[in-house]
């Protein structure tokens, strides 16, 4: 994935602050993912393709999403993995 630490090369005092910020942001993101379980999610893919599915889970690196009942243009896929690289955004109702 991406940067491990932007602060490491500049200032050792920055590191605890950066790690704190990282943990606050990540916790909030994980709670958001958790609340998405079993919800209908609409994925916006490249070339304006939109597909709907029921959200299951994400892997820790956010590389794949596991979904059920993926509505594709050629039919409904009971279970599927969506590559996050193919996704621009996704929406759901909370």
């Amino acid at each position, binding site marked *: 994935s*991406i940067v491990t630490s932007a602060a490491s090369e500049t200032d050792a005092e920055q590191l605890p602050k950066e790690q704190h910020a990282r943990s606050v942001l990540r916790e909030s*993101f994980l709670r958001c993912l958790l609340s998405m379980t079993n919800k209908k999610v609409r994925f916006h893919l490249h070339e304006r393709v939109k597909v709907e599915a029921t959200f299951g889970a994400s892997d820790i690196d956010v590389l794949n999403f596991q979904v059920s009942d993926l509505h594709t243009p050629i039919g409904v896929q009971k279970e599927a993995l969506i590559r996050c690289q193919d996704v621009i955004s996704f929406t759901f109702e909370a």
Partner: protein
Amino acid sequence: MQCDWPLLGPLKWIRYVNKQVKVKAGKDEERCGWLLTVDPVSASLVLVNFKEEGGASVQVVMGHAVEEVEVLREADDETTERLQTSFLPSKTRRLDP
């Protein structure tokens, strides 16, 4: 702000939290919303739009697709509170003794 969003790092991402932002991602696509958080692993943004009838619409924009993030305004106390308690489990939401 024109930027290489995934490379900013947590200290810069956290400055965008609780702000209303406009995000450009994909081809000529723009999204607006209150920024709840940025995933430090994938740099994905979580945008929340509250509805008048209650509830909220949540958009997650993947970090790799982000082209531009622009801050529109800051949240007032009420919006901040509403935003940050949106996904807390109901047990910890009530902290009254």
